[in-house]
């Protein structure tokens, strides 16, 4: 019986981490549904970007209040992991505050966790007020209705509860230490929790232990649940921001890729020695689909982008089309891509890992033509994204599908394109008149 808590703890831990890895596997399978793209270049630049943007949070501070609050929560999250490590070791071994022999360093660590916990509570409250009372414009766009809004608040509540549990646990522990309770090593500094400790004045040791243990258990269960909640939440970004910034676009923002399949066809068309009527050889691969109408047509970095999106709406609030009331919202492009990818993933789960045609696709069922054609390709969304997401690349892939596979461009654009084809200019003028401006 003595080992019951340890065994229980081990079971909880294994279940928690097991589920997490199951989700990670699903995540990586879904991302790999995307087309391959070579991102093995410029490793040093990529590491630098990751260090600067994900670790260093350089893009967050473009908006100082949100940036500062975010850094607090982020540092709190990173540091709290040291605490979690201790909890896990204690849980498995049945020890208490196993790192206590670190002495002064330990006091400092626990003390700083407490201060951070308090700062996190403050930040969480500020975040909550911005979302629910001030109602910052970018948090109340139509794409945020329903789950995204709930998700945003939910995470704040979870963080608040976790921090409060942590402080309660320490406050009870502090009391137990004062009372010389067995097992409760005198260790740690409690700059914040000692302020709430008086709440427990006069409580018996056994009741204090009950409080301390309850808070301890809830704290670790809470952390494990949080870990498993991530997959379903925009909070996946706390993990994916790192690979995502690593794989982020390195070339100038204005540079769009030159579709290789098109290059081959154009070369063939322009090659005077090629036989235009030659029948395709037997083993010729299926002609490639141009552009993207569904998530599988996008590349895996674009799909990773979709899972990384934090739904912060910085892209949308900078988007000129969105600011002037058009339907386009780059954030919605990312959210739609993720939703559709999840739907495809669920479809595969239900069909033994094979995707069964469901009569739906990203284009049309999620993203409308109207949204796609409203984009000015200005790159403001790309610039604004704090985690190096490129919504514009998805918009362009879908335009490519509309134009090259479906000839479904707006009529005026079709006119413009046939002018280019016929006259070498978007306007219907004669190419021979190209120099008239000199003498006008």
């Amino acid at each position: 019986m003595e080992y019951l808590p340890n065994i229980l703890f081990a079971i909880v831990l294994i279940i928690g981490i097991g589920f997490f890895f199951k989700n990670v596997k699903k995540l990586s399978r879904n991302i790999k549904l995307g087309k391959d793209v070579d991102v093995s270049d410029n490793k040093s630049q990529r590491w630098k970007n990751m260090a600067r943007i994900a670790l260093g949070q350089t893009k967050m501070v473009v908006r100082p209040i949100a940036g500062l609050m975010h850094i607090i929560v982020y540092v709190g999250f990173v540091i709290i992991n040291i605490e979690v490590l201790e909890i896990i070791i204690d849980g498995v071994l049945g020890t208490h505050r196993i790192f206590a022999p670190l002495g002064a360093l330990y006091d400092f660590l626990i003390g700083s966790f407490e201060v951070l916990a308090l700062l996190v509570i403050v930040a969480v409250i500020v975040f909550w007020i911005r979302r629910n009372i001030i109602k910052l414009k970018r948090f109340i766009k139509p794409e945020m209705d329903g789950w995204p809004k709930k998700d945003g608040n939910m995470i704040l509540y979870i963080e608040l509860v976790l921090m409060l549990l942590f402080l309660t646990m320490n406050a009870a522990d502090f009391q137990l230490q004062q009372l010389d309770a067995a097992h409760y090593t005198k260790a740690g500094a409690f700059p914040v929790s000692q302020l709430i400790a008086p709440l427990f004045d006069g409580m018996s040791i056994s009741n204090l232990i009950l409080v301390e243990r309850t808070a301890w258990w809830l704290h670790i269960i809470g952390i494990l649940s949080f870990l498993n909640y991530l997959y379903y939440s925009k909070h996946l970004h706390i993990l994916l921001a790192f690979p995502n910034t690593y794989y982020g676009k390195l070339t100038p923002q204005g540079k769009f890729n030159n579709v290789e399949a098109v290059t081959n066809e154009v070369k063939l068309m322009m090659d005077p020695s090629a036989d235009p009527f030659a029948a395709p050889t037997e083993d010729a691969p299926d002609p490639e689909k141009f552009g993207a109408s569904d998530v599988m047509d996008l590349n895996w970095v674009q799909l990773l982008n979709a899972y990384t999106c934090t739904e912060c709406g910085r892209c949308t609030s900078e988007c000129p089309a969105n600011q002037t009331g058009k339907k386009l919202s780059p954030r919605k492009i990312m959210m739609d891509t993720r939703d559709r990818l999840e739907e495809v993933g669920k479809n595969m789960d239900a069909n033994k890992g094979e995707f069964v045609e469901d009569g739906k696709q990203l284009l049309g069922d999620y993203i409308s033509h109207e949204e796609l054609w409203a984009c000015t390709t200005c790159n403001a969304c790309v610039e604004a994204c704090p985690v190096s997401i490129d919504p514009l690349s998805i918009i362009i892939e879908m335009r490519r599908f509309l134009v090259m596979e479906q000839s479904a461009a707006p009529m005026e654009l079709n006119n413009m394109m046939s002018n280019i084809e016929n006259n070498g200019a978007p306007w219907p003028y004669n190419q021979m008149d190209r120099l008239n401006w000199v003498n006008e």
Partner: protein
Amino acid sequence: MSEELNVKTMEAFMAEGKQPEILFWVGSAGSYDDRAKKISRAFVKILNKANVEFAVLGPEESCTGDVAKRAGNEFLFQMQAMMNIEILNGYEIKRIVTCDPHSFNTLKNEYPGLGGNYDVVHHTQFIKELMDDGRLSVKGEFYKEKRITFHDPCYLGRANSVYDAPREVLKKTNANIIEMKRHKKAALCCGAGGAQMFKEPEKGDMDINVLRTKDALDTNPDIIATGCPYCNTMMTDGIKAHEKEGSVSVLDVAELIANAEGL
């Protein structure tokens, strides 16, 4: 009719067995659009004044295909690009200057992947170079005391991080350069990019150029300076929408320099 401009085609250089210092890529807007033609002319006046030996392709130039690419027509883009590259490579062109940030971007970033490698420069960068090298100077007081605000074109600024050249050139006019609230990286689009120039905007509460022109008007300018023919059109229309065409003008950086020099 205005005064003679000295413009030679690449074909003429070839006939003389010479290579020009630069190729001036005029672009479709610069060749055909009435407003943009004035920018081409102003830039040529500057080149003539600084004794730059430059060539144009004339009837051999074709649309870069940029706008087709942004609209999603990769086929058309690559056809245009490959045709242009064949001509440019045939003439062994090394250096290209253009007044159009869209041509600038695609020639610089997207042509290399298709076999076209050139040193591509925006005209504001080239004007700055001429000034730095002492080949061109602005002594005039023409714009002294005037308030000028510069609108960053997306395809020059955010797309290629060129922010300083146009500003440094403008400073030479002795005008007051005032920044809009959103500028450089944070600049708002004029609304023309991504093929929007050639179609009606989608439904919304406002047109983008009207919003952007408001940013500019908030600086209380005498002149809105642009570095892109499409921005120029958009801001000019924006001024009209705000009924400010009597008091505020929209001029390309090249035009400002040409005017300051009395060219």
